[in-house]
């Protein structure tokens, strides 16, 4: 269901982004990356918040099934985070001719988050499975969503300081109706995609766990 919705919405969204929306006044054709880059980034945030919500539920109820759910959500968040970095890098290349720029807030923030959540995986791999690992991972996932606004603030503060040149897109300006519709469809599509992947991955991880239990019981 979710997968079908994701496929449909994304196909529709991409067609809209390529064939329906008019070129942006200043940026021209290259502005169309917006319709994939920003929805993917917002979806990554959504995944991280979902992970933190599940982490909070785990610490609240001590119900161990939330551990796998939180872990899977972080996993999806990192996939979408990497996509944000790559599409953002391409956007930087078309706009300013460089593959990386420290003056693009979103991009820098995602680099910090990527490092942070990579350490989450290191933490999980380095602790034996059990309730202790579940609650430590949950605490770390919670720190992640607090780090997002704090880092964002820090990056804004740093901009004026270290890299005084600030580039601007015209996406910050008001979006036209057609732009808004295209963006909405694409965002719904990436969200549905993340949801479908999340459900799939969660089932797979649970299956893995059950199988090892079965193996233990049989041996």
């Amino acid at each position, binding site marked *: 269901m979710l997968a079908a919705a994701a496929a449909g919405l994304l196909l529709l969204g*991409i067609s809209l*982004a*390529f064939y329906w929306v008019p070129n942006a006044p200043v940026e*021209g*054709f*290259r502005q*169309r*990356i917006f319709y*994939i*880059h920003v929805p*993917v980034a917002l979806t990554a945030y959504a995944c991280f918040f979902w992970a933190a919500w599940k982490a909070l539920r785990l610490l609240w109820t001590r119900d161990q099934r939330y551990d796998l759910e939180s872990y899977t959500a972080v996993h999806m968040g990192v*996939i979408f985070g*990497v*996509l944000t970095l*790559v*599409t953002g890098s*391409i*956007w930087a*290349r*078309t706009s300013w001719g460089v593959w990386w720029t420290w003056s693009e807030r979103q991009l820098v923030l995602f680099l910090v988050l990527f490092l942070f959540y990579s350490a989450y995986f290191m933490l999980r791999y380095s602790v034996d499975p059990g309730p202790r690992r579940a609650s430590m991972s949950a605490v770390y996932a919670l720190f992640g969503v607090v780090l997002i606004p704090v880092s964002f603030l820090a990056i804004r503060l740093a901009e004026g300081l270290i890299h005084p040149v600030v580039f601007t897109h015209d996406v910050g300006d008001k979006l036209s109706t057609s732009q808004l519709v295209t963006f909405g469809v694409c965002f719904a599509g990436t969200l549905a*995609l993340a949801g479908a*992947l999340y459900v*799939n*991955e969660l089932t*797979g991880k649970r*299956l*893995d766990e059950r*199988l090892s239990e*079965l*193996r233990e019981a*049989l*041996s």
Partner: protein
Amino acid sequence: MTSAERYVTAAYLVVLAVVLAYVVIYAFKLSRLEREVGELAELARRKKEEVA
């Protein structure tokens, strides 16, 4: 194709490629799970025979 068009297309293709890569990795995982289930079924069958 202008260079802007190429880059925009590339951005969308990257997303597609990552999703496809995920599907491929998942296919490998599925086949591993299938093999493991097979092994466990075999193990269970042998245990049952031993008991009988």
